[in-house]
């Protein structure tokens, strides 16, 4: 985290909290579900999750969380001078938001898949979503 630009002489606590949050949201569920080694392999895309929806969900969660935290940093330089623009807050929000979106997407996908059994038209949307996930 510090390597990527967090201030490292002051505000240790905030940075630590952000790291903890990110770990909690990304690695922890994966490790709990799949074990340390395969979790690492999954995260770095070495091993492919084969039709395992839960692991897929967890991996997507992790990726989107990091992306969210990353994108959250965009607003820091803006000059709106609101109190929530202080250093780690946008990243917290981004991380949580990313996590949320990822979960929503997964649920949407699952519900669509089950719905697609009834209405084949929806298969198109499912495939689009699948592609979206794979390209990540």
């Amino acid at each position, binding site marked *: 985290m*510090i*390597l*990527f*630009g967090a201030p490292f002489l002051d505000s240790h606590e905030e940075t630590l909290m952000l790291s903890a949050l990110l770990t909690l949201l990304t690695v922890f569920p994966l490790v709990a579900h799949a074990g340390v080694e395969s979790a*690492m*392999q999954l995260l*770095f*895309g*070495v091993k492919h999750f084969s039709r395992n929806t839960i692991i897929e969900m967890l991996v997507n969660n992790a990726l989107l969380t990091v992306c969210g935290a*990353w994108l959250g*940093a*965009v607003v*820091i*330089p*803006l*000059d709106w*001078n609101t109190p929530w623009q202080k250093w780690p807050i946008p990243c917290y929000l981004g991380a949580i938001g990313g996590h949320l979106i990822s979960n929503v997407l997964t649920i949407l996908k699952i519900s669509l898949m089950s719905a697609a059994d009834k209405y084949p038209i929806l298969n198109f949307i499912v495939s689009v979503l699948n592609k979206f996930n794979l390209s990540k």
Partner: protein
Amino acid sequence: MLSWLQHRWTGLWLLMLALGAVTLFLYGFFPLKYHSGKFAHMDDLPNFIDGIGIDGQEVYNAGEHTVVLMVIDGLRYDFATEEYMPFLGELLKNKSACIYVSVAEPPTVTMPRIKSPERKKEKAQWRRTINFWRDIFASAMMTGSISTFADVALNFGAPAVRGDSVLRVAASRGRHSVMYGDDTWLRLFPGLWAEHDGTTSFYVTDYTEVDYNVTRHLDRILSPDEDMKPIFDFLVLHYLGLDHIGHLEGARSPKIKPKLIEMDEVVKKLYTAMRQWSRTGVLIVCGDHGMRDAGGHGGASPAEVLVPIVVVKTDDGFRCPHPSGPGPTVGQVDIAPTVAWLLRAPPPGDSAGRLLPALMPADVRQHLYLLHVLASHNAKQGLPTDTEFYKQFKRAEKQFAQFLATGQQSAAKIAKEFYDESLDAMSKYLTETTAEFDLFAINFATVLLYILAAAASCTTLYSLQTEIRKPSITHHQPSKVSLLLAFAIMFIIFSIILVISCFITETKSSFCSFSPLWSIAFFAAALVLTIAYFVIKTGVEKVKDMTALKELNAIDYLLILGTLFHSWSFFGTSFIEEEHMTWYFYWNTLMFFVLVRTVVVIVTYLSKRWSGATETQEKPELEVRMSSVGISILPQWVLLIALHRYLRTMNQTGDRWLFLPDTADWLNAPENAFYLQVHLLIGTLVTLGICLWNVRYMNNYMYVHSVLTILATICILCYRIASDALETPFPDIKTWDTITIVNLFWAILIIQALYEIIIYAGIFKSCGCDPGTKKFGYSKPKVKSEDYYYEPAEEPWNVDNVKLNLARSLSHIMLNDLMLIVILLMRPHNVIMVPSVFVTSVMISKCLDHKLLDLRAGKGKEVADLIGQSLVHVWIGMVFFFYQGNSNSLASVDLGSGYVGLREYSPGRVALRMGLHAYAGPALAGAALYCRLARGCDTWQRYLQSVWRVCNIYALHRIYAVAVYCVVAVTFRHHLFVWSVFSPKLLYDFVATVFTVQALATIAQIVLLTNLTRWVASLRF
């Protein structure tokens, strides 16, 4: 027109055309006014009117006057009434004072009401802009000519008015000028005041203290000496309080009224004091701009632009000649000649105003003479002679002469009318031509830039095709004549379109003035349009094969999209001020991506290697992929990230966090001098190491290059010692002259470059081969010595090979020299940047390799590699540009680096040094890229091809960035920050374009030089 598309330097030419377009844009955006800089003198007064003699000095003399100019900032027209200022209203009513309406200067920037005065940033911006306002106002008042915001904004670091002003003419005539109030006046006219006390408007929340600071001097300065004469001739009072209230609370604030009463008291005090003097006093009360009811100013509504000018004369016979009411309209520039005349000084050189009618003398002869002086003064300022007002002026002169000769009152009357009419038209003409943006030129330049960007993207896409098919000679090949004809027709069509658009928009732009000089530019623009049209047309027809673009991987997409988006991010002002944040963010993202990718590759590699036998068939492929980097790439990469993290702390830049302490501050503190020197030494020595490493690619015959490089480095170290940046065990060196050292340094570099070329030319000779028919040559002495034993003539050395070697070594010499020069120019703590650029470039080139990152091999890898490499080098350049402490504000330009090794100021060399210092990052990254190109190619043809592609990409990137930014600048031309944020960025972009042109031209030169050397060598035999 296919040949254009295929031509190697089309990108460069297009970039040059774009530079022209940007210049046009800048011309339109910064309506720089031509100041003649002439100093007026009493002898300039005309002594002959149409052949009839008159004693100019005697007629001009106004008698002794003392002038008090009281400026109340933000005094709007309806404030100068009995309701708000009772005493002033009383004076106006009994006709001892005259009121005029004046229109404030063209409002190009809005100064909004300040919503939260505590906010540091807003306060700073506001202060900067309000200073612009005051500068313009004060210089309009005193020089009598309108300067634009651009004049002031671009007046780097030297805000003083260089031209003529009332104060200068008054001082030259021995008058005493005194100033109390806003310090703008002191900054603009330094050294011209006999006495002064400036206040700043730094605290906008303060509206009592600023005015008290002015008023407290009045009692003393107003009391006359024993002859009842005042102790000064010209007094300027500038009250800021009213404007501050206006900015804080608006014109309906309850604080306005007491403030105006306070001002009224001051007027009363001045008036009563002046009545007691033995000399006639003239009091001029005016505002510089009005204010909106809601607060703020800068718009074009009457409340903002209409300001009163009240003239009071303490002469008993003085009666205001105008009927009571709003009074006639005058300009703010009229103050200058009026005051000059009252002080018995000539009108200042650039003044374009008239005299205030109320003060005009009753004597007909003097009256006419004054009108004549002003009219002829205006006519001298480059007015066209074929206009109606000029003819009117000539007619008036004839009538005046007749009056002087015969004394006919009717002639005087006619002359007066004619003079008035022509003066009216003249000052209108003079103000109108200079005031506004040249919108036609701006828009046209933007359109032109877009078309050029399209053309450049066509060439780039064309050059990026994997295989450029040879232009097949088909039956449909049009002849040269028809091509020429088509060209001519298109040219004519574009000219006609341009002319029509000129007339349709009815623009006053000088671009459409069809004067000889401008029509050249006009037709050049039409020519550019034609060329761009043909390039685009051919490009659209020929670009079909886009398979290469399919090979792009995620990182390439990140690079491309990031670059594209970056230009658009400028629509937010913060993103301009904090542009470094964008780049740091991108750079982090890129490094993170690469890190993840490398980890993936290495983990795959390791796991496959350990898991063993089942996947043996994949192993060789993996081995190949890994062989170029090895596992050690991972820790290296992490170290690189850490290095960048460290460099980022080196200089705080931007606007908002500029005040935070950074590593550079820490290093420059005296107690940490040791660490600073360590930095300096490490930076220099590592660069030396890199240079020596690069020497491998040169013709290091007898180690001459190594020796020269080491000598140059020693020069640098000596320079550092001599300029006290480095401690030394040899105290002698401290006494050496820095300038000699730097000259020696230049000499060494030049010798190095020349030596290389001569060696190449010479080797051709020493081979003793027959040129032209035979193929020969080598680059490395080792090869040569081997060759010596064999039969040299039989070795089929290729001319192309030699050329490639020469180009390679020239590029490396360029890189080495550039690094050494930059080290010489850099601040001590920044020296470490130079090797970092090189290391970063090498590392990232390794890691971005498609062979390493992609799973499957493809055909277009080479092209995709090139795109990735060139864009990443652009990024490296920008990142280091900001690491070094630059930003998009003119304040961060390091002026000190301009004077390294120079004894006196010479504009060209200083500008060159400063530019190179500021753009060191991009320049080094570019040079490193071209070295890499030369290193990586195995044949001359491929080298040329890749240079061609990279040049196109660079040109496209530059044109694209500038074009987008031009749109941004046009959109925000009325924004509050336009002069403090947008314009400097525009200038930075302009300089960047110039430097890109220069860089690409250097590459072109290298290729040219290579060919030239070969030619020279072949000539020798």
